[in-house]
């Protein structure tokens, strides 16, 4: 018991004051990109060619955050001339089209469906579905339950059964082998329900786009309400999106 108390004292209280107090991420973190459309077209083209995810549309000078894995290659390639990543982690969106961005995103709070706020604003229970992918998305979702983020203080919980849930939170590109289980789990959630696609995989197939063995876009099999980009999304990106969309 004494050891427990000693450790407790040493550990102290580590829960983040977010969202009351802002969080600053280290300057190497890559959040919302800043895009310079006036950059010379050769550089823009070179970035588009160098992008492993084919996420850059050179003609409109836009990046598809649903495909992007935030590898930073475009920034290096253009020496920051065309793309510069900011430390802004607020990247959740309600419409898939908004992910194709010139550097700004609509405020999520205004785009959320008002009845979702009324229904789930005080208490939101989610069933997580891990549908292939690399498990980093799951790991950084789990982190929300550690003392630092302490998700449950916001009345949001991940639950064991779809029957207890208000919606699903899906990660991974939905392998062919997880197709049936994903649909079955979704159907087991009572209506009205909400669907969240988290991470580049669930939005676009992520690193695995084009593989015969995946579906690659959750929205093509279940209508998605909230998109959280990243590979994986930083836990604070997820937390921000959940709070803005439902609170």
């Amino acid at each position: 018991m004494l050891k427990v108390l000693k450790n407790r004292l040493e550990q102290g209280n580590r829960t983040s004051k977010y969202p009351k107090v802002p969080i600053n991420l280290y300057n190497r973190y890559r959040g919302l990109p800043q895009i310079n459309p006036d950059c010379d077209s050769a550089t823009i083209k070179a970035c588009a060619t160098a992008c492993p995810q084919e996420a850059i549309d050179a003609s409109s000078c836009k990046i598809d955050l649903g495909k992007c894995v935030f590898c930073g290659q475009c920034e290096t390639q253009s020496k920051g001339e065309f793309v510069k990543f900011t430390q802004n982690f607020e990247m959740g969106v309600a419409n898939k089209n908004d992910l194709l961005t010139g550097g700004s995103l609509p405020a999520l709070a205004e785009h959320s469906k008002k009845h979702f706020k009324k229904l789930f604003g005080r208490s939101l229970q989610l069933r997580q579905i891990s549908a292939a992918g690399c498990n980093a998305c799951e790991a950084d979702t789990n982190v929300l339950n550690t003392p630092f983020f302490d998700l449950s203080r916001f009345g949001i919980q991940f639950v064991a059964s779809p029957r207890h849930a208000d919606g699903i939170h899906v990660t991974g590109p939905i392998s062919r082998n997880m197709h049936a289980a994903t649909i079955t789990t979704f159907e087991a959630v009572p209506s009205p329900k909400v669907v969240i696609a988290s991470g580049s995989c669930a939005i676009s197939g992520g690193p695995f786009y084009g593989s015969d063995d995946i579906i690659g876009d959750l929205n093509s099999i279940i209508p998605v309400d909230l998109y959280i980009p990243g590979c994986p999304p930083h836990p604070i990106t997820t937390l921000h999106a959940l709070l803005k969309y439902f609170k």
Partner: protein
Amino acid sequence: MANLLQINNGETVQRSLIPHLAFADFRSELLTFANNGGQVVQFFGYEDDGVLKFLAVLRNEALFVVGCDEPESYQSLTTETEKFHMFEREIAEQYGVKPEGHPWLRMVRYHENYRGKEDVFGNDYKKEDIPGNYEYFPVEGDVIHEVAVGPVHAGIIEPGHFRFQCIGETVLHLEIQLGYQHRGIEKLLPSVPSVRRPIVIEGIAGDTAIGHSLCFSQAVESLASIKVDEGAKTIRVIALELERIANHVGDLGALSGDVAFNPPAAFFGRLRGEFLNLLLTLCGNRFGKSLVRPGGVTQVMGEEQKKIIRDKIRETRPELEHVCDLLFSEPTVRARFETTGTVPYEQAEKLGLVGYAGRASGLAYDARVAFPTECYADLTANTNEKAVGDVFCRANVRREEIMHSLDLIEKLVQKDGETANDPTFDYKLAPSSFVVSVNEGWRGEISHCILTDQDGAITRYKVKDPSFHNWTGLAMSLRNEGISDFPLCNKSFNLSYCGFDL
């Protein structure tokens, strides 16, 4: 062993130099090797001008490679040693070749084979969803019952199906069926442009992004004769060790949670985050994605990053020691950890367990020591005190490795010298060549093989995550255990579903 070619880790060899045996000789060569304490690093099929061939990479104190022409069906090697069990199933599924007499020939990942041959298991993947659709190991009797879990589990974890055959509370056998995460990675890798390969590789298993990208980068560097500077090697090793610490710390937290000892569960959970944040400090991603690339690393480690790492280690080391002490000295925890889920040495050897799971059972093998890459040859090795193969030992090995890794990183950040960051996507691979790269990822031995054709294009990319060996270890650890000890056994192994499913 006259018929085997000895090779070095990460060394490019001409394919024509690899002994190509008749199948009967190949078979007996492999069996002799495996029955004399040797282990299988890789054993896989590949197509060469429309002809199916086999290749095996073996290890004892050294690495060896040998190949053969494949008969359309063959006498299974598993009947004589367990070491080939999973490899033969994988080949059967990927190429439609039957190992006759295989004692448990079942699907691995549920997919069509690469050659359009008739499916060995009689499945038609065009018609229906097959996962989970097969006959599990049958156990019958009035007092026998089965517990079936998954594919979607209760927590935020990857999908898989676990079937426990129980008599009362005691588990007679646990059958683990995976494959739900199959994304077709081995098929994808040769077909995508070189800029995409590192991204796909980092998606093999996110918690091992550094380990797998290291194997990939070393293989490509060898085939393309790319030199990597010392500074980049240092950063790569620091990253690999940070990955190891973060995962071990997280698992100790999960183990605390599974015995309902909440304070250390919370403390370890928070501490894990500190190490993920150090990876972010190095490269902008908490899992180390985007850092390691053929040619070196994408970002340098300057004084600023070194200081952050040094300070964080100084701050967390005593905390880690104290929380470990809290967990490991608690009698009720020891009562749950000790003698639970034991995989004895002989069994571990037969199954070819790797990594901490192997070391906890007394198999000393550590790829960092046996086949050192990067700057591991200059670093001290870790040794483990107690190794009887139970949950306690698998947890304790983690504690010892965390402390060892902290030492290594502290030493490495003292090194002077800046790094050139010179990753490359524009390379030409040596034609008609073969390479295998082996590293000790946090779960154990990771290896990648690349075969190139006469134009230097990749004809076969073979990935092996340590989990490929160790899932069977988890199944064995459950025999005659109480079913309520499953979470403990499971967490003490903490295997990768996606790394296995590929």
